[in-house]
């Protein structure tokens, strides 16, 4: 018996060692069958450079709680690179997508290191999840690998002065600023001068919420708006009635709220129950834009404004080739996922496109880190160049100054774009908001 136990224990230890060594997520190759997978670029570099595939790392949470959006984000990048390969790749070289599943910050640590050390990627793009983005940015920077952020908005990513970290989407405080600008614009429409506006800021207590709050504060202070309430709250609260009571007490004209889905729904419900009627209610964050919001609230969702990147591309302002690619992307995305691309799909798609054609192509490949950085810094695309309506121009910290947000509004169960006019799909309704009792 003792001998059997010893053998079993030894077997168990061996199995654990084997599984530990092979642990570390999957590695998907691009769907183009005609690629060659080459492990050792360095030796044959000069001779074979023209035929070598370009490895690009794609990190997304493809499992775990963020998996739904993570998968959507992943397919945005994958389809983009597939389309690029079908159009001849980057200067004739095919793109090889090396993907890694990164559901949390710990996995980010392990996987990004693996991509850099074992797979030899020189460019990594990601990710739906601010905590993972920060880790990825740190590690990439340490290893002279370009980090190309498509989605995450944490301010911290582009405030450390890392030369090789670029974010094509907006950052948290940018979100806050644009939201406040849009709020001021709508207030003007209902006859309130900017300096008479009383604004209440209420945000989730995490990096995203705090960055947005900072952005709104800055705009408010510059433009003369009065801030009557500026509160952070715990997004996991079961019940948001104390927050709504605080809001009621402060009596603001505009509320700018940053929430996740559960608290977003509850804040709106409690606003109804406690009869809280601001003239404008502007939501930021997934709390106000997901279909689940309208499902949970029914007609009560009507009139809620959500500020986010646009998910209805305006094809006319795009370059013809890109417009065609976007249409093809939408078809393939729907085949793959069963629904039309959400915002994150467009964000990763356009980020991949710019990365391939404006950075890697202009730098002649991914081997020269500095050349890629210089190419990125030289980009000057006007607003309207990308499907979400954004342009590209990076500041000294790698943050895109021309990222664009639009204002959307729930109207009869559909999220319509109401601002800017050039991208609007519908007229705004309920501005100012009617009292709950009058609905």
């Amino acid at each position: 018996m003792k001998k059997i136990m010893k053998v079993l224990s030894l077997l168990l230890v061996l199995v654990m060692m084997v599984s530990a060594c092979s642990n570390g997520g999957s590695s998907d190759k691009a769907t183009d069958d005609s690629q060659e997978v080459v492990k050792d670029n360095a030796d044959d570099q000069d001779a074979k450079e023209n035929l070598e595939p370009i490895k690009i790392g794609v990190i997304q949470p493809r499992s775990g709680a963020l998996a739904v959006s993570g998968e959507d984000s992943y397919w945005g990048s994958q389809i983009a690179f597939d389309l690029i390969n079908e159009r001849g790749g980057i200067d004739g070289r095919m793109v090889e997508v090396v993907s890694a599943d990164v559901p949390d910050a710990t996995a980010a640590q392990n996987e990004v290191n693996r991509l850099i050390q074992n797979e030899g990627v020189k460019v990594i793009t990601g990710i739906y999840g601010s905590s993972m983005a920060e880790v990825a940015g740190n590690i990439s920077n340490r290893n002279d690998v370009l980090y190309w952020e498509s989605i995450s908005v944490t301010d911290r990513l582009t405030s450390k002065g890392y030369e090789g970290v670029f974010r094509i989407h907006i950052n948290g405080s940018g979100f806050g600023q644009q939201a406040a600008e849009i709020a001021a614009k709508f207030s003007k429409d209902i006859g309130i001068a900017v300096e008479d506006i009383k604004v209440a800021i209420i945000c989730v207590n995490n990096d995203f919420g705090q960055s947005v709050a900072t952005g709104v504060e800055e705009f408010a202070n510059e433009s003369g708006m009065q801030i009557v309430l500026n509160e952070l709250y715990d997004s996991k609260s079961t019940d948001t009635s104390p927050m709504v009571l605080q809001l009621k007490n402060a009596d603001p004209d505009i509320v700018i709220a940053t929430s996740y889905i559960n608290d977003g729904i509850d804040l709106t419900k409690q606003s109804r129950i406690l009869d809280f009627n601001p003239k404008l209610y502007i939501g930021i964050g997934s709390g106000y834009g997901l279909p689940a919001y309208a499902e949970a609230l029914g007609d009560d969702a009507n009139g809620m404004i959500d500020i986010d990147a646009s998910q209805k591309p305006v094809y006319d302002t795009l370059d013809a080739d890109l417009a065609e690619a976007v249409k093809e992307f939408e078809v393939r995305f729907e085949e793959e996922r069963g629904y039309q691309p959400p915002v994150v799909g467009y964000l990763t798609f356009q980020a991949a496109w710019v990365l391939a054609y404006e950075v890697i192509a202009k730098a002649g490949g991914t081997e020269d880190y500095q050349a890629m950085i210089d190419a990125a810094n030289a980009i000057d695309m006007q607003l309207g160049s990308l499907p979400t309506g954004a342009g590209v121009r990076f500041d000294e910290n790698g943050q895109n100054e021309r990222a664009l947000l639009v204002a959307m509004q729930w109207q009869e169960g559909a999220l319509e774009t109401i601002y800017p006019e050039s991208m609007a799909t519908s007229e705004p309704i309920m501005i100012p908001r009617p009292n709950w009792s009058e609905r």
Partner: protein
Amino acid sequence: MLLQLIISGILLGGIYALLSIGLSLQLGVSKFINFAYGDFVMIGMYSTYVVYLAFGLNPYLAWPLVILMGIVFGLIMFTVAKRAIGKSPINQILMTLGFAMILQNVVLLFFKSDFKSVPSDFNNSIKISEIFVSGNQLITFGLALVSTIGFLVFIKYSNTGRAMRAVGQNRNASKLMGINVPRVDMVVFILGTVMAMCSGALLMTMYPTYPTVGSGLSIIAWITVILGGVGHLQGALVAALIIGVSETLTGYYLGGDVRQLVYFVIFIIVLIVSPGGIFNKISFRKVKRL
């Protein structure tokens, strides 16, 4: 304002009380440590959602079906759980943590991580003098009171209830006295599970559900039960009200980010002063049973 906060807090406490009845039962009678309790509630929420999808019934009408589903689900869980009842607490903790992981991931597999919700007809605003409440909150509070009183009556006057009290007081003596202890365990487990699922159904009228909603609910249920005294049903009700009111008061006066901090602090203070919970004077020996 203060009155509104207190009323909102009491109604919130009603929700918490309903949430914790099932756990109080399982803990008090069978001494079964169930760390998957919140996930049983989650299953109740998803069951309500499925009933809504299949028959279009709102949660208040779906109750009988949810109870049936709860009995079936409880029976299934019991076939595994019974091996740990009466045995080492560590086994129970590990087993129920395993349950929690399995339940969460099975639900994630079938329903994805999207938030699901069910529309409710009573989400209106009722104004009573200066106070605003919603229909849902009142109904839930009412049901919490009714269930607690119902249980107390059942436990005091029925034979099964008396058997449950006996098993709760002294398991071995009950066996010696001829009480069918395994059967009592089964009844208690299923009853606890059904209560969990019904509270899930009621929660669906107010909140959306998602696979990991259980962990937050577990914590609230546990704190309510321990604060009120393990096995003490009325204690759990009072503790729930205290937690509800402290949450709303601190949320308003101290800010939204410390509201949960305060009731954890209350929890720790009470445990230091009276380890058996609020309803036990400083007694380290016997905890008052049901």
